[in-house]
């Protein structure tokens, strides 16, 4: 029998590498206890945002969706409600990113994308919660809390991503401040 060879491109390798980063961050986050179910920093989204700005939307979508599937397999949550929440959040925030990436770069940095994606993520999750898991209006009491968390963590993740991009940019060396920051 002839062994089948799967041709992989440089793009595939890059997606795999970046998705691995995202999965690792997701795993780290999984062991951090959360005060309220659903309130999580979402540090894996830093990778998605970074990839979006460096390699474009298609790669970011691949990395994000791969991360959701692989992480749920590793945590034993595949096809569970947690997985459904994670996937719907990821899909809605990707849609939001696809829209938001057309915002003028002059005025909107990656921090804006991060905050908008965080809000979209929580909206996607609440949609699943409301339609499927808890079909009851009482969930609405938690929405303001989720919204605050989305703004806070969206802002932090966005700032971290901005810093990563700044460090990556080749001409950053010349105008770097003298104080060693890292």
């Amino acid at each position, binding site marked *: 029998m002839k062994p089948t060879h799967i041709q992989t491109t440089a793009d595939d390798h890059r997606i795999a590498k970046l998705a691995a980063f995202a999965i690792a961050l997701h795993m780290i986050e999984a062991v951090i206890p959360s005060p309220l179910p659903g309130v999580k920093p979402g540090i894996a989204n830093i990778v998605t945002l970074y990839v979006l700005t460096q390699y474009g939307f298609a790669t970011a979508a691949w990395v994000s969706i791969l991360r959701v599937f692989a992480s749920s397999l590793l945590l034993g949550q595949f096809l569970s409600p947690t997985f459904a929440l994670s996937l719907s959040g990821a899909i809605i925030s990707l849609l939001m990113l696809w829209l938001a990436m057309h915002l003028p770069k002059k005025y*909107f940095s990656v*921090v804006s994308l991060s905050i908008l994606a965080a809000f979209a993520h929580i909206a996607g999750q609440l949609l699943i919660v409301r339609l499927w898991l808890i079909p009851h209006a009482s969930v609405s009491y938690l929405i303001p809390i989720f919204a605050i968390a989305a703004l806070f963590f969206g802002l932090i993740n966005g700032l971290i991503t901005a810093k990563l991009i700044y460090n990556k940019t080749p001409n950053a060396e010349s105008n770097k401040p003298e104080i060693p920051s890292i």
Partner: protein
Amino acid sequence: MLNLPHNLKHAIKTLRLGDWLIVAGSIIVIIYLFQTLWSSEHATKVQIRLGDKIYATYTLNQQRDVHVHGPIGTAVINIAQGRARFSKSPCHNQYCVHQGWLTRAGQAAICLPNQISLELIGENKPYDSLNY
């Protein structure tokens, strides 16, 4: 990473006009969400249910003891100063009495053994917790 204040100062400098607008917009949305979803609306009426029927609806703007005859005995419901509670119940666990005063619209106390429930209602009923 160790130089946190510097990093933060630098990070804030990278924010552009649109970013500030997004942050401000988000804060407005959050305030709006808090106002609409966390409005602890003042209750104006108490609805008493016996079995599957509405037994009576009283305004909370009065001082009154209501005696309701349920399947296992008579329960006494106090209404006073915009609040309502079970003050006496023939049930053995007394959960309904221990729940104490109900003050906000949407709050409910249920006595399952005696099939009596109280629900406070505001000007407009926000949601019906008893039908779920």
